[in-house]
């Protein structure tokens, strides 16, 4: 493991218990995006912590009714980008028997069909979400989104839009940033109440950059910026923004 990795490991327990804050928290979150070992360790710590929680209470009266009142209306049936296994006990419909096809060929075709189905589901799902966000951006006042921020370069030659839903789910769309070399990438940052948080890395070929903000703090978002960094990204940036935009 590298020094870059080792500097975070001792903090993983505290981070899993929400006992790390500020810049240090942002740095760990950035590291976890690229380090499956540390991400797995944090998940283990949280699993252990869940045993320490007091669960003797009953669910509070009235809260369920308030939740139901805020549920979004029924929507298209597909939302997740993976196909779950069939539920246990699901009916199996027998295939009408005819001439028995070659088993190997059948299996290959079945796998190919499954792959195509999964890819189609992913593509449809992505298209829906992207289209939905693009539609919101197209509205004059960004109605439907909690935040819409225009980012632009110093000379106005590059731009993008950051769109954030009320759930905190955000998208950087319509960027026209130039290509970068193999050892570089773009890094998106958010300014939340003066604290600069890394929101992810991407390259110029990425159409939509997904990120997540705390939905309860959307009113504290002051803006977004994109910097050019060496791969795999930086915990803090010392580079000037390529594009930047502030909330209205």
């Amino acid at each position, binding site marked *: 493991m590298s020094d870059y990795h080792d500097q975070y490991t001792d903090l993983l327990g*505290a981070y899993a218990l929400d006992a790390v804050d500020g810049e240090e928290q942002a740095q760990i979150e950035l590291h976890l995006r690229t380090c499956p070992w540390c991400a797995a360790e944090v998940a283990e710590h949280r699993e252990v912590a869940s045993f320490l929680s007091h669960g003797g209470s009953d669910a509070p009266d009235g809260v369920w009714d308030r939740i139901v009142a805020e549920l979004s209306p029924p929507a298209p049936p597909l939302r997740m980008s993976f196909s779950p296994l069939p539920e246990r006990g699901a009916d199996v419909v027998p295939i009408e028997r005819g001439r028995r096809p070659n088993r190997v060929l059948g299996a290959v075709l079945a796998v190919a069909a499954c792959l195509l189905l999964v890819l189609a589901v992913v593509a449809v799902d992505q298209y829906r979400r992207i289209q939905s966000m693009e539609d919101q951006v197209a509205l004059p006042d960004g109605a439907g989104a909690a935040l819409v921020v225009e980012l632009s370069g110093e000379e106005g030659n590059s731009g993008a839009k950051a769109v954030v839903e009320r759930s905190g789910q955000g998208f950087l769309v319509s960027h026209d940033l130039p290509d970068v070399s193999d050892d570089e990438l773009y890094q998106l940052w958010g300014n939340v109440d003066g604290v600069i948080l890394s929101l992810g890395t991407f390259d110029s070929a990425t159409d939509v950059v997904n990120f997540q903000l705390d939905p309860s703090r959307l009113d504290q978002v002051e803006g977004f910026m994109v910097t050019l960094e060496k791969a795999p990204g930086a915990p803090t940036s010392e580079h000037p923004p390529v594009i930047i935009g502030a909330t209205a």
Partner: protein
Amino acid sequence: MSEPLNETSDAGLVVAISRYNQDALAEAYRRHAGAVFGLAKRLLAEASLAEEVVQEVFLRLWNSPDKFDPGRGSLRSYLLAQCHGRSVDLLRSETSRRRREENDLRRTAEAGYDLEREVWDLTVADHVREAIAKLPEGERQAIRLAYLGGHTYREVAELLDEPEGTVKSRIRSGLKHLRADLVAIGVNAGEEAP
């Protein structure tokens, strides 16, 4: 015929929630809202704030079910982590500070309070208590103050008058010891809650 929701696994419930199945959310709420509320109330010490956190946690599950990764742990630990993070945000906000100080005073006045009293499920409570009791005192204190007190590790270091590096190491090693002990005595720290 598909499985009734009350027999569906937690991961299956989340898949159903992703398909906008409100009954699946109700079932997840029935299974876990008590634990989520218990943790929020333990941290915030105010029922109305704790209820708000419960509401937020389950609405977030409804709005973004894909944030739950069954490969990373149980739905219960995911919901409790969400609850803990949100509660700590509230706890650390300026408006909550005074209330927290009052609650801290009240809690320290309670005789015999310790981490062992906070375990969640009677069916595993004895095992968990046993594992907690085996922890060195420094590790137990650090985990209690961080997780159930909502303190940062730097605050914990101040409270215990220990170096910050010692505290963060103790939290991590304590959690690892707990996990190892739980596994050794037959409690699977990765299994779904009943």
